[in-house]
């Protein structure tokens, strides 16, 4: 490292070197993720169990009201397991999105004092949520065993791809919001509301088939592709819809690139305005 040469020039546009740099700073990425996990569960009585309790309780409440009482159809799958798959991915997406949108503000004390590739911050907050996702997945395994569902191996292999799409959607959207948040602090108040609305236009508590001919409109929402295919892969509710995955993937990739672009633009002068 001692031969490292740093050149500082006025405007640095996005460069392949940035990716290399993120790799160089991977230990810091690890530490940020570790810090977030550690701090979050440090002062709680039941600690990591929160990661399980939240989706579990939501699932129970939804199953009682939407499944048993409102009798929302669930593509022939027991409602608890149906809604849990949806919730698992939805919570990963929504919590990653809201955390990412706060990264610049929440870490301004560090950002204005030390240099590191700023993209590490949103990536680390998504990593934290991924850990939660994995912990909460244990319940899903339990539910699947209880109801006697065995995923096909091919379906199981699809999950990482779906996670990547969710990752791109939440980071892409989050970066975009994080950039706006620097100038307009309204985002903090508007976002929870927005996320709640978004959940109802995403087939989390109901199957996409309920929308009938309008389901193509729902396909604009990338999380629909993710959740619908997660159900198809794990529960065999329908054949895997590769077109939908393809559309979601491309949409999220574009969202991610826009997010990175906007974020990078703000990042350059961020330290000057806070």
């Amino acid at each position, binding site marked *: 490292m001692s031969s490292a040469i*740093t*050149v500082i020039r006025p405007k640095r546009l996005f460069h392949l070197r940035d990716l290399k740099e993120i790799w160089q700073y991977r230990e810091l990425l690890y530490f940020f993720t570790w810090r977030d996990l550690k701090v979050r569960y440090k002062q709680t009585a039941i600690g990591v169990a929160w990661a399980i309790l939240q989706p579990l309780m939501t699932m129970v409440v939804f199953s009682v009201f939407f499944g048993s009482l409102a009798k929302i159809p669930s593509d022939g799958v027991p409602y608890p397991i149906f809604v849990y798959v949806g919730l698992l991915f939805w919570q990963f997406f929504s919590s990653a999105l809201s955390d990412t949108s706060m990264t610049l503000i929440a870490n301004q*004390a560090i950002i204005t004092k030390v240099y590191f590739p700023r993209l590490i911050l949103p990536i680390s907050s998504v990593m934290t949520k991924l850990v939660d996702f994995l912990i909460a997945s244990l319940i899903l395994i339990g539910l699947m065993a209880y109801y006697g569902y065995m995923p096909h191996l091919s379906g199981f292999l699809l999950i990482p791809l779906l996670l990547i799409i969710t990752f791109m959607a939440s980071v892409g959207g989050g970066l975009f919001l994080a950039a706006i948040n620097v100038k307009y602090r309204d985002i903090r108040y508007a976002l929870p509301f927005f996320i709640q609305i978004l959940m109802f236009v995403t087939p989390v508590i109901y199957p996409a088939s309920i929308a009938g001919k309008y389901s193509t409109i729902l396909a604009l929402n990338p999380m629909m592709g993710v959740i619908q295919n997660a159900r198809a892969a794990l529960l065999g509710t329908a054949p895997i819809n590769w077109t939908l995955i393809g559309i979601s993937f491309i949409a999220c990739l574009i969202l991610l690139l826009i997010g990175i672009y906007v974020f990078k633009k703000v990042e350059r002068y961020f*330290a000057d305005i806070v």
Partner: protein
Amino acid sequence: MEKPIIEIKNISKKYKITHERGGYIALRDVLMNIVKKPFSYLKHKAKSVAGLTKKEDFWALKDVSFSVNKGEVIGVIGRNGAGKSTLLKILSQITPPTEGEIIMRGTVGSLLEVGTGFHPELTGRENIFLNGAILGMGRKEIAKKFDQIVEFAGIEKFLDTPVKYYSSGMYVRLAFSVAAHMEPDILLVDEVLAVGDAEFQKKCLGKMEDITKKEGRTILFVSHNIGAIRQLCEKTLVLHNGSVVDFTDTEKAIDIYLSKTKSEKIIIPAQKANHEEFRIKKIEFKNDSNKPWVVECSEKIRMEVLIEITEDMPIFRFGIGITSLGGERVCTVHSRETNLDKGEYLVNIELENKLTPGRYELGLGILNRYNLPGFSILEVEDNKNNKHELFNHGFIDIESDFIIKKNNQ
């Protein structure tokens, strides 16, 4: 000949100052504005696109060039708003320059604050790793130096206690200790020594001297503390209003700095003096003296501060602090609390002067929220009609009476 380790070529940094109060705006206000006054909004927008709005350009740095050779310890001094911190921020890549280029040949570590990223909920042990990583150390490197860090900070007993239970002294010691064990080729240090008690400051200075002498590291050291600069640096860069005045031997540089610091009217750059509620515009020396900021012994010190209140302040208190060049506080005085409405105010200040001859730093503060340290250097001259022949050591000359009588008992 080896190439210089730091080459700074024509660096400039421009800030745009919009005359708008507050740091951020709410989207709600912007939308309301559009709805309420669509035409004036459009006019404003069109003006800003055409570049006609009253945006003030402020050059925090203008055409700064210098280079540093390997193993040199360079001090950077200058008055408030001279561009010291901006220079350091650009070198640490926290903010980009507007123009120019910098080449640094070696790993760079910057220390703009001690304890960056410390988390109160985490233990001392955990914070050492986290802070080390933020400062650019690898996990193995931190593990290797862990014992040294703990020993230097002297917190062995509290390693597994969350740092929120630490006393402020312990906290600073731990934070500095982690920072002191960084091993970059180039170390950039801002006024981190301003924290902590005098004794710990000395320990830190000693540690920094060790680092440079033994290990031949290159250091750029920004400070108000002339004593510290004198002790550490061979060469010093003097900045004034964003430009380099001189880059020369430390002693000479300090002289230049002290003479530059004295101008009768001190205009405070808006970028520095902006606060949500007020703006300090000008500080003026009011004594009848042909040399600005020079007074004789026991001559009262008079100055006037022009301040604009931009938001009603129910509680307003104004303070002046006098500090020795070694960084020790001589005294602080402040006004009574009053409430001020929006508008411009003149604050007339008259200070009784019991200072011994020498140079002092003047600072200004508003409530406990705003500080403008070292806005000027005050020179107290030895006047001829001095009734004592000897001057006492220290900063203050107090009335004294010694009666010496033969004891006849």
